[in-house]
């Protein structure tokens, strides 16, 4: 990869003007959905049409997407679902108008939380709820089976919303935030309030501590083959090995793309061993895992990268920043 590659990539970037902080970005088919900090989504379709869709009456606190539906939670107490055609529907309204702190989508169902209460709306539109010991820090559906992981203070809870059995509790001291299942469903990993990750091997609840970060880890993503967990939280891309049955137990992470700024957002290419990394200084790098080669997808700017996503085929990479800059890089 060369400077010429970089020049061609930055030239192939379609600038988007979202008009405010970009809290997240997801792809609905090939339409990039920029989730703004307040009130609206900006849908940027492949035909270069842009539509602003007002969905919340206030701040947008959480977003999750399965490629067909983008689910958002707002400080207006609403859970909304929006598709690529800008059709928005109300999934739920919190009866007490509490903030919707977290959302997740999977198995045709939608999950959300307000404080300590966690809800699931099943594919059949049946609503279920459970309480956790403290406010949910993150939600994630398991890749197989209808199961939800809820991160909270002092551990995580595994809940089968369709089962009568009490949810299973995984204990580990401290405040657990973002949560993710490995693609094979064998491991659960949380990002903590402290600059570290915690993991459990679900077969035997064996603990895995993944430490050494410079800052709180805000972004986690699995490579396409599921062999690596890519994370921010350091001045480089950190990759934990999950290929073996012991996951990263007793192993060192790979460290690629050392940089000036802190890596804050990561997004793994959906097909190839390539990770997009967004830094606190606004830089976006594409990092090839085979040889560690890097290409600049966006040059540093005034504010941290706050959103990063690939479309399903990996031909488009969308990014957004805290100061409201955004773009779509066309790699096709």
């Amino acid at each position, binding site marked *: 990869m060369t400077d010429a590659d970089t020049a061609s990539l930055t030239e192939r970037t379609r600038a988007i003007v979202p008009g405010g*902080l970009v*809290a997240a970005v997801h792809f609905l088919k090939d339409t990039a959905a920029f989730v703004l*900090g*307040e009130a609206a989504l900006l849908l940027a379709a492949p035909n270069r049409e842009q539509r602003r869709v007002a969905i919340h009456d*206030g*701040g*947008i*606190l959480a977003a999750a997407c399965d490629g067909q539906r983008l689910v958002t939670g707002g*400080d207006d107490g609403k859970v909304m679902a929006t598709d690529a055609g800008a059709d928005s529907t109300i999934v739920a309204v919190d009866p007490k108008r*509490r*903030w919707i*702190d977290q959302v997740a989508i999977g198995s045709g169902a939608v999950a959300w939380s307000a*404080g*300590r209460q966690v809800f699931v709306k099943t594919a059949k539109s049946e609503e279920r709820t459970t309480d956790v010991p*403290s*406010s949910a*820090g993150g939600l994630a559906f398991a890749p197989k089976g209808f199961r939800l992981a809820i991160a909270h*203070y002092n551990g995580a809870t595994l809940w089968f919303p369709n089962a009568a059995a009490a949810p299973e509790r995984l204990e580990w*001291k*401290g*405040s657990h935030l973002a949560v993710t299942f490995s693609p094979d469903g064998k491991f659960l990993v949380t990002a*903590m*309030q*402290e600059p*570290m990750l915690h993991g459990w091997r679900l077969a035997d609840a064996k603990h895995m501590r993944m430490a050494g970060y410079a*800052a*709180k880890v805000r972004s986690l993503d699995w490579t396409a083959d599921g062999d690596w967990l890519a994370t921010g939280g350091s001045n480089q891309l950190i990759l934990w090995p999950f290929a073996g049955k012991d996951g990263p137990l007793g192993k060192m992470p790979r460290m690629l793309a050392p940089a000036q700024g802190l890596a804050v957002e990561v997004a793994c290419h959906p097909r190839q061993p390539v990770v997009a990394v967004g830094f606190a200084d606004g830089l976006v790098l594409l990092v090839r895992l085979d040889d560690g080669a890097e290409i600049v997808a966006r040059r540093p700017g005034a504010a941290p990268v706050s959103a990063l996503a690939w479309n399903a085929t990996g031909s488009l990479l969308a990014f957004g920043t805290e100061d409201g800059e955004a773009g779509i890089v066309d790699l096709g």
Partner: protein
Amino acid sequence: MTDKIPVTVLTGYLGAGKTTLLNRILSEPHGKKYAVIVNEFGEIGIDNELIVGADEEVFEMNNGCICCTVRGDLIRIIDGLMRRKGKFDAIIVETTGLADPAPVAQTFFVDEAVGRRTRLDAVVAVADAKWLKDRLKDAPEAKNQIAFADVILVNKTDLVTPEELREIEMRVRAINPYARLHRTQRCSVPLGDVLARNAFDLERILDLEPAFLGSDGGAHHPDHGRDGAHAHHHDGMAHYHDEEIQSVSLRTEEPLDPDKFFPWVQDLVAKDGPSILRCKGILAFQGDPQRFVFQGIHMILDGDHQRPWREDEKRESRIVFIGRNLPEENIRRGFAACQV
């Protein structure tokens, strides 16, 4: 730095008047918009779209520091509020009457994202002039709140006699000699005395000196009552000492050796952090043309060079510790050993 959103923390025992103060802040015509984090919805009579209910979730940090706690809910709420940056000028956090102010304050130093976008402006305690004396006896929380505060409103002064008021002020001073103290009725205080105090700003530590100075940590400081009745507590008045919470005030004109001072103070807060509620200091290091200022909460210390010493200024180092059963002799000996 300047675009960080200031945060004011309101503490005070049940019924002292926190909600009254909050309602004043929200209803007076000051042209500012506040995001308010409250514990009880519905008590606020003012329509404000940026009112958020909190859960007071106090989380211990896994960093080997036993008193290092943060408010997990506050981290989440501030992160959410910052999505709407530009819609408000400042944040006010109301705590419950039984809350310890330390986890709230520590949140601004421990969480990087919170600290990057907001700054703790001041901890304001509202105290009930009629009942504070009793609460100081039976409620450790009430005492903590007084000890921790940067600004104290002795409220409901119309319910006590001038003598009772003077006595309660001396009890407050015995616990916390350096907070700004205001006498109020129905929390009537110019809002500039409560908000935008910059009490946690190292640049502004000087501002605290009139009440901060003094060697005995006792009741001999002029308070800063807005009513003009500067209560110089006259000879013959009882000199209160709180049995539990004291302040230890140190000063020296001898220059300090930074290679001795920093290890000492770090070791001190590592060992005695749980009992040290607050500390503040202005330091003159040998051969250093700049004033060094610092402050701390329990085990967390924050310090920096402030500005060059002026020609006409006495190069003096001063520190105050406020805490519970402080090992005063140890602290004095340790500090003395830091002199060059």
